[in-house]
């Protein structure tokens, strides 16, 4: 039939093999699902229900108590723990401020930087592939290892950073880095970007490679310069990748627990204390009820910041 029209037959002739539409019809008709299939997800569902969902619900319960983790008796104190966190605990508000600052710094720097790296390495040349592998490499190391490497880079007396600056005659720029409370958080943010920019670069490269080449060729013929091409082709097309990078980096930098403990010690000094390390210290101090309340604030903060970003970026019109 198709030979007559010169087009592939779209409409189905009677008796031809079933196509997708038939499948849909069949799905609606009651199909037998082997009941044994319901056994397959059981182990996973049991593990998640018992060790993840239940403890999370319990956190809400603990958060309303003054339980110290050991005594059998404890009191329900209502929202006292939450009120204390926000109004009467400078350690907590300090950690909260630090954490928000850290997230903001890392999200901006890492998104920007990983996009630049991706733009420079989009083409699949041999050199690009090699450099991608190199830039990705730090991501696979443990946070404690990365922390130790950077502790040495930042060491005020023997460290690499000051040695390099001294070597090129820029002693004026030498710093005590982590020792300087006003700067410490910024230097850890640099470490965090070094740690994970390569990972986000890979996400961006996947996004960039999906952009049809013809768009750039057409734009070039219309006389669009590189910046115009970036603005009206590249940036809108990588929007989904940007939203992944921003969301992932946010969660990652909220949870930079291991890196902070490795670089600043346990417990970290105040200028490097973030929410997760604060929760751990509260917990280690046997204030279980209060630590649970802090955990809930922590979860709420992640959700809030992620939501705000989505609103600000307006990158996910479809929503999740």
């Amino acid at each position, binding site marked *: 039939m198709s030979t007559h029209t010169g087009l592939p037959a779209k409409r189905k002739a009677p008796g031809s093999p079933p196509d997708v539409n038939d499948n849909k019809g069949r799905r609606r008709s009651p199909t037998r*699902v*082997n009941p*044994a*299939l*319901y056994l397959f*997800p059981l*182990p*996973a*569902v049991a*593990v*998640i229900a018992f*060790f*993840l969902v239940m*403890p*999370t619900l319990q*956190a809400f319960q603990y958060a309303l108590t003054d339980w110290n983790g050991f005594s059998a008796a404890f009191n329900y104190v209502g929202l006292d723990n939450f009120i204390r966190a926000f109004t009467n605990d400078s350690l907590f508000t300090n950690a909260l401020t630090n954490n928000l600052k850290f997230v903001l710094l890392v999200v901006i720097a890492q998104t920007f930087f990983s996009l630049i*790296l991706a733009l*420079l390495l989009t083409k699949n040349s041999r050199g690009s592939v090699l*450099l*991608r592998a*190199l*830039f*990705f490499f*730090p*991501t*696979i*190391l*443990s*946070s*404690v*290892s990365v922390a*130790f*490497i*950077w502790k*040495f*880079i930042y060491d005020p007396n*023997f460290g*690499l950073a000051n040695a390099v600056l001294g070597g090129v005659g820029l002693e004026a720029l030498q710093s005590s880095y982590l020792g300087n409370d006003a700067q410490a958080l910024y230097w850890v943010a640099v470490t965090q970007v070094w740690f994970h920019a390569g*990972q986000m670069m*890979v*996400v961006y490269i996947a996004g960039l490679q999906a952009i049809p080449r013809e768009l750039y060729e057409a734009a070039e013929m219309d006389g669009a310069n590189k910046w115009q091409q970036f603005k009206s082709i590249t940036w809108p097309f990588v929007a989904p990748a940007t*939203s*992944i*990078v921003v969301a*992932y980096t946010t969660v990652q930098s909220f*949870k930079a*627990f*291991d890196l902070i*403990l490795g670089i600043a*010690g*346990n417990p970290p000094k105040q200028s490097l204390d973030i929410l*997760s390390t604060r*929760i*751990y210290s509260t*917990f280690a101090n046997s204030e279980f009820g209060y*630590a*649970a309340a802090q*955990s809930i604030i*922590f*979860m709420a903060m992640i959700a809030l910041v992620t939501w705000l970003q989505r609103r600000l970026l307006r990158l996910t019109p479809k929503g999740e």
Partner: protein
Amino acid sequence: MLSSITRRGILAIYAVIIIVPLTVVGFGSFKSTQELFAGPFSLPQSLSPGNYAEVIGGQDLGSSFMNSVIVTAISVPLTLFLASLAGYAVARLKGFMSWAIFGFLVLGMAIPAQANMVPLYVLFGRLGLLDSLAGLVLANLVSTLPIAVFILGGFMRTLPKELYEASSIDGTGPWRTYISIALPLSAPSIAAAAIFLFVIHWNELLYPLLFIQSPGNRTLPLALLSFQGEFQTNYPLLFAGVILASLPVVVAYVFLQRYFVAGITAGASKG
């Protein structure tokens, strides 16, 4: 042409910023403290394994290494197994149930481990799982099962349903279909998930820090962290520890790089 020079410049500088610290750590792990401080960039005078002997034997990093191997060797396959079972069911079940099971399992990705640590500690205490490797295996399983289901279930759903149905028409039970059809066809995503889990479990610090009391039960990241206090500025020793802790992951990365990028990106795109 300027843009080409700028491009090369940026790439070269960043390559140096990655390579130099790693080289310094590699060289430094063979040096004495004085030698490192005198010339951090120079080649070590000798490849004396003194620092390694000290951290492996003296500081017992050897047994921490073994603990990490044991925990990871059990927790990665276990997580993959449970996740692939669940992912398989999600792919084959229909309508609401499939959606509900997948949603329930994947929802856990939204709960950060640090938010859960107090109740989990209490629960593990009641179950007698504190200060044991079994507890660490279970904690790894719990914390990464959601994302493993997300990766594997997501992949298995994209396999044509006809593949499963054809074999069930032949009278093959769901278990046989899981073993002989679902698993082999999902091999690429299982490999990616395996790498992702391996890196996360191998490097896990929070749970050991929470649960482990006895030095004999420490995993590598926890043992390394304890160095931080003891050897404030004995960097060569810290570096030897860093190299030992990173070695398995680095070796795997060299040989399985493709899967690393795929796996770790799959983990990232959950956003």
